[in-house]
């Protein structure tokens, strides 16, 4: 079957971008940030969202989805671990905000680090026993974890059962700036808050990507066994990826609960996990700009076309299938991921891994090596 290909316009642009001198890049960053702060303007809103409050939509789902997608991208895009229960960390952040805000009456700014810490601990608890699994096995366990958190919240009196928690305090307002008054009637301040968090998350993730941590993740994604033999503590770095992803998800949850005031288990369905995975894959996993674009589209399109409410999910599914045929590497893929997908290796692409016990792992190396004798021989004939 002939693959339907689009003309590659992204490649040259990303090449040119990577050759741009650093000051020029900073100019672009500043312009992007200024534009992001100007985004809630009514003139933009009248086109982007004629039926509902634009700045409310910019906070949730758009801003929150983008933050979640940046977090999940660390796990899926960077380390190549398929996590289908990412919503669990969002829920843990949300319930931490709700529970502490209601019972101890702490400030949002104090609860935020607590929520992040709680999510990180949950990430480590989930990761420690399960990160020895590979590929589809890990996906199944994380999927279960997401459901366990939601169902537990649904069944505990502590979390308010199915009715959830309500009356969660908003963040305290800062001074008398209208942009920093947080209450039920304001929406723009929450957007600015999530925007600041998104920028911080991007800075964090970018720094990690360019360090030994990012290299270790890339090595794990490409060949986990070889990475381990080259001295990469693969298990520890996978756990870090999980914990960092969880932190960002937890922060998003705290912010979400502080804005919506009431949360129920139904705010954290499996569907949300899958939307975020879709955002990451659709945008081009591994590449932050792509992931942000993907999250924006996944959040915004259904809001924009509310008129087709009944067919939204159907149209969404159709669009995804089309995407996977026309552009499987995502809208804005990272160069490396594009190469991996083209050859069918790497993280998300290679879900066929076995269970990684010491023994099986070892046998896999052996198996690869035996058939490599033949490939080696063939290649040597081909070599000049």
């Amino acid at each position, binding site marked *: 079957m002939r693959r339907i290909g689009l003309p590659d316009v992204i490649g040259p642009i990303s090449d040119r971008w990577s050759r741009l001198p650093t000051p020029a890049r900073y100019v672009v960053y500043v312009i992007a940030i200024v534009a992001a702060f100007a985004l809630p303007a009514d003139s933009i809103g009248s086109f982007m969202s004629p039926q509902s409050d634009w700045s409310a939509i910019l906070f949730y789902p758009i801003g929150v989805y983008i933050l979640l997608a940046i977090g999940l991208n660390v796990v899926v895009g960077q380390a190549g671990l398929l996590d289908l229960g990412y919503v669990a960390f969002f829920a843990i952040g949300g319930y931490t905000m709700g529970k502490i805000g209601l019972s101890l009456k702490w400030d949002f700014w104090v609860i935020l680090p607590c929520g992040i810490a709680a999510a990180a601990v949950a990430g480590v608890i989930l990761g420690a026993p399960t990160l020895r699994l590979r590929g589809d096995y890990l996906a199944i366990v994380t999927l279960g974890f997401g459901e366990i958190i939601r169902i537990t919240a649904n069944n505990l009196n502590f979390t308010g059962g199915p009715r959830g928690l309500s009356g969660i305090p908003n963040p305290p307002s800062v001074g008398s700036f209208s942009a920093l008054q947080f209450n039920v009637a304001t929406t723009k301040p929450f957007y600015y808050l999530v925007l600041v968090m998104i920028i911080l998350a991007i800075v*964090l993730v970018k*720094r*990690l990507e360019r*360090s*030994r*941590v990012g*290299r*270790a993740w*890339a*090595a794990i994604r*490409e*060949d986990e*066994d*070889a*990475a*381990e*033999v*080259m*001295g*990469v*503590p*693969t298990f520890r770095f996978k756990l*870090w990826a999980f914990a*960092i992803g969880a932190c960002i998800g937890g922060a998003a949850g705290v912010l979400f609960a502080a804005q919506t005031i009431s949360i129920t288990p139904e705010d954290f369905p499996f569907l949300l996990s899958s939307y975020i995975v879709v955002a990451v894959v659709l945008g081009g996993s591994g590449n932050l700009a792509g992931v942000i674009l993907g999250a924006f589209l996944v959040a915004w399109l259904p809001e924009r076309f509310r008129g087709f409410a009944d067919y939204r999910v159907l149209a969404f599914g159709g669009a995804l299938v089309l995407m996977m045929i026309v552009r499987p590497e995502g809208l804005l893929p990272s160069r*490396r991921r594009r*190469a*991996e997908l083209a*050859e069918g*290796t*790497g993280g998300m692409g290679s879900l066929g891994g076995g269970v990684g016990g*010491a023994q099986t*792992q*070892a*046998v896999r*190396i*052996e198996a*690869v*090596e035996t*058939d*490599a*004798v033949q*490939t*080696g*021989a063939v*290649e*040597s004939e081909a*070599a000049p």
Partner: protein
Amino acid sequence: MTESAALLELRTVTQQFGGVTALSEVDLGVPEGAIFALIGPNGAGKTTVFNLITGVYRPTAGSLWFGGAKISGKRPHEVARVGIARTFQNIRLFDNMSALENVMVGADARHDSSVVGAALGLRRHRREERDGRERGMQLLDLVGITRVAEDTAKGLSYGDQRRLEIARALATQPRLLLLDEPAAGMNPAEKEQLGVLIRKIRDIGVTVFLIEHDMGLVMQVSDRVAVLDFGQKIADDTPSAVRTDPRVIEAYLGAPADAT
């Protein structure tokens, strides 16, 4: 030869997979500063020895010692930090990373900056990044492939990929380098260069443990040669002595069936 001078020692190591015995009570000693070769017919258990040394397998019985400390039971990344690096029989580079990045992954084995340090861009992290880059370039220079430093690994020629694997392994600053059939698929000129490179590596103070099928190369570079056949060591001596050993000749050429 005194076994106590050995950098790496296998003491009566047995490795079984299910009912199959891959190695049976093998003793090996790799002297420090030497080029040591392990040869044997296909399926003799040579790569199994490397997988045991690097912690990919745990021995069914027996133990492995490196520089006087026990290494059997350690995980592969711990073995790397102790000072043992390897290349693979089939090439296992990080295909979509550049040659330099591949080597930098190896160099990171000696780096201590934490995830938090990397996130905050602390001074140690910045110094280690610079150090990794510099050392990476030096090693690419040592193996002679600086011209392709920025190319992705999978785009390199076969010979360059083999060289890159050696550079990546050396980046972990090993005391012992395990080379698993480095000459496989090379033409005579490349084999010649490889022999020079292996000696160069030994001369910078790294002990070399070589698995190789190419007898010309083995006889040319090795100080000592051990021979495995069906999981048992049948010889362990100087290259010239091994070459004339009747048991070795029998293992390679086949001989009248003789039950033992």
